[in-house]
């Protein structure tokens, strides 16, 4: 009974949010369309060689789209292979090519004049080609496919829950009128405590709601095959199938592999290096230990961008071509300190004499390490290894500066270049939904195990 009341209360509090959600969805429905820029700078090497062009999302150009004439119909693929120097594209102006695909996404090629600075900072006027992916929402799909009904349904349910809750509350108050003043006072005290308790609970859950909203968005829209995040085109498992059958974007597949390979190499190397270093540091004299510990903390304090840039400068100075090897080295740099830190506490917990004893009994240092120290150290090494894996997979800043221009992409840099183009490869959604679910499962597992241990 009590827990039902709590649920009702939470639902009641959230109902205004749901209503806003429903309404915002409705207005979204009426807009002409969400437009995003999917122009690839790399697709037009002729016009952009070495130049930086600031591409803005054409939010302001909705009206423009309505009045412009379509000169030609080209598929996006046609455009990508089209000769940029063709006469049709020679004249200045806003020549538009558009094409609507089966999903209701219209691809529009739009050309603008753009002021570009060249190497010597001179201002040049240059063609800029934009490929816009325009999704005309209200027209193609209509409200039946929208998510608005979900919002309204939630709002309705919440509202009903609120009414039920109020009724329950009123009945309860009626009953309490018959109590003595003392009983009423204790009840009031209890209520105060409860209110504080539920207030703090509510705060945390609200915070978590905000924290998880974007992630929930990814998870929900992994079950629809629409190219655009936030556009529901019906339930489907297509994205998951694409991901597992390798039908996803080739760039994504290679990014996944590179991420895994780099993370494994970095984690293994840094675990070995870090464990040895931890043993060494532990046995050092106080002063040199202090120095090495400081050195060890430098990569942890340094933000990504500094680590990345400094390594980038090193590789430039050495004339090393950047690629897989440099990324691996860079990852080892920022992973090893964490391994050292997770192994050190294990060392201080073990008996320092066992290693010496093994040596006295005729073991070689390698044997003593393998048979005496490793069994004691491996939990620390394992947690260091896992930490290194997560750090490596999650890293963006360092990878970005050390990956070179050879086309090596990890998941992070792939998402970045994808997001810069405006779109997001749809198969990323199921990928990260799976990661989230696995992580949740691990969390629940650890929690159950811990509580069982506590019971014992």
């Amino acid at each position, binding site marked *: 009974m009590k827990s039902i009341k709590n649920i009702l209360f939470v639902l009641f509090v959230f109902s205004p949010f749901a209503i806003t959600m429903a309404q915002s969805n409705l207005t979204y429905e009426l807009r002409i369309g969400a437009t995003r820029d999917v122009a690839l700078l790399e697709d037009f090497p002729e016009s952009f060689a070495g130049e930086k062009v600031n591409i803005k999302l054409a939010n302001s150009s909705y009206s423009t789209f309505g009045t412009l004439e379509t000169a030609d119909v080209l598929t996006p693929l046609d455009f990508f292979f089209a000769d940029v120097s063709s006469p049709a594209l020679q004249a200045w102006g806003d020549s538009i090519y558009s094409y609507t695909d089966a999903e209701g996404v219209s691809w529009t090629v739009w050309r603008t004049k753009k002021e570009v600075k060249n190497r010597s900072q001179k201002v040049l006027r240059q063609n800029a080609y934009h490929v816009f992916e325009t999704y005309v929402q209200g027209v193609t799909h209509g409200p039946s496919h929208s998510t608005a009904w979900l919002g309204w349904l939630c709002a309705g349910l919440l509202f009903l829950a609120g009414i039920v809750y109020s009724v329950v509350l009123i009945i309860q108050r009626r009953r309490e009128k018959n109590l003595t003043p003392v009983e009423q006072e204790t009840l009031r005290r209890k209520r105060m405590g409860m209110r504080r308790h539920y207030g703090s609970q509510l705060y945390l859950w609200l915070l978590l709601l905000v924290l998880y909203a974007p992630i929930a968005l990814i998870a929900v829209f992994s079950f629809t095959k629409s190219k655009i995040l936030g556009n529901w085109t019906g339930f489907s498992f297509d994205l998951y199938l694409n991901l597992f059958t390798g039908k996803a974007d080739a760039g994504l597949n290679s990014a996944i592999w590179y991420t895994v390979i780099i993370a494994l190499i970095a984690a293994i190397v840094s675990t070995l290096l870090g464990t040895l270093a931890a043993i060494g540091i532990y046995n050092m004299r106080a002063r040199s230990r202090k120095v090495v510990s400081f050195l060890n903390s430098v990569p942890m*304090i340094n933000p990504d961008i500094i680590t990345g840039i400094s390594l980038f400068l090193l590789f430039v100075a050495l004339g090393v071509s950047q690629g897989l090897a440099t990324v691996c080295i860079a990852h080892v740099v920022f992973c090893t300190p964490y391994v050292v830190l997770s192994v050190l506490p294990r060392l201080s917990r073990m008996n320092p004499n066992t290693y010496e004893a093994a040596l006295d009994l005729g073991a070689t240092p390698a044997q003593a390490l393998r048979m005496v120290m490793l069994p004691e150290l491996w939990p620390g090494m394992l947690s260091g290894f896992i930490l290194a894996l997560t750090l490596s997979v999650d890293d963006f800043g360092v990878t970005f500066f050390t990956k070179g221009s050879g086309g090596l992409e990890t998941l992070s840099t792939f998402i970045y270049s994808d997001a810069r183009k405006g779109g997001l490869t749809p198969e990323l959604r199921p990928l990260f939904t799976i990661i989230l679910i696995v992580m949740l499962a691990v969390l629940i597992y650890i929690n159950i195990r811990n509580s069982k241990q506590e019971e014992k």
Partner: protein
Amino acid sequence: MMKLIQIFSSRRTWAWPYILFMAMFVVLPLILVGVYAFTDIDGNFTIRNFMKFFTHSEAIQTFLYSLMIAVFNTAICLLIGYPAAYIMAQEEFKTPKVMAMLFILPMWINFLLRTVATVELFNMCGLPLGEGALLFGLCYDYLPFMIYPIYNTLLKMDNSLVEAAQDLGANRWTCFWKVIVPLSMPGVYSGIVMVFMPTVSTFAIAELLTHNNIKLFGSLIQDYITTTDLLNYGAVLSLVLLIIIGLTSFFGDHDSKDGEGIV
């Protein structure tokens, strides 16, 4: 040969490979940042690039703006994060571990993807992408870094001190301000450092959250360092950032151990 074995049976030497590695890939690169900052493109010594920074209004303005954003973000994270950590650390809370993990779990989803999803969320709600979105996104990304160290110090806090204060007649409010807050300061310091430093150096998030309309110092550095001819100037900007980071970690070096359990 015997001597070699002797050297390596002394465990002190086992750290040598790591020290060498660090010297090569941590110390040398950091020195190189300084070297590049004070040389021109041909490798001759010059302070022109350095002087350029002080007269380059775009760089100065971006720098100050980034500092401001970082300070704001740190303040917001503290205001939101402290109550959350405090609530979680309270005894009456039944499942503090799960809660703490729930706050850290989003960090396993790639932060760029979360940022893109945030942008999409803003679009869906019809909110404009600008300074507000930037602060929201930054706060969203770095809030766990604030909550975790504070939560840790609060957990470790000796509860008998609070009880003593209550026995001596302090009400809840006095007890909070005079006992709990001072005791949790180490966690607050390391939280501030852990939020401020990545915020001031952030470069991809700002770009995505504002569709490149707002430029932060990190993005500026990225622009210059990836342009071959302006690499030395990029090094100057990196050096400036490095100094800021050094100062922050120097001032924040009260009890950084509380933050180590994160990730």
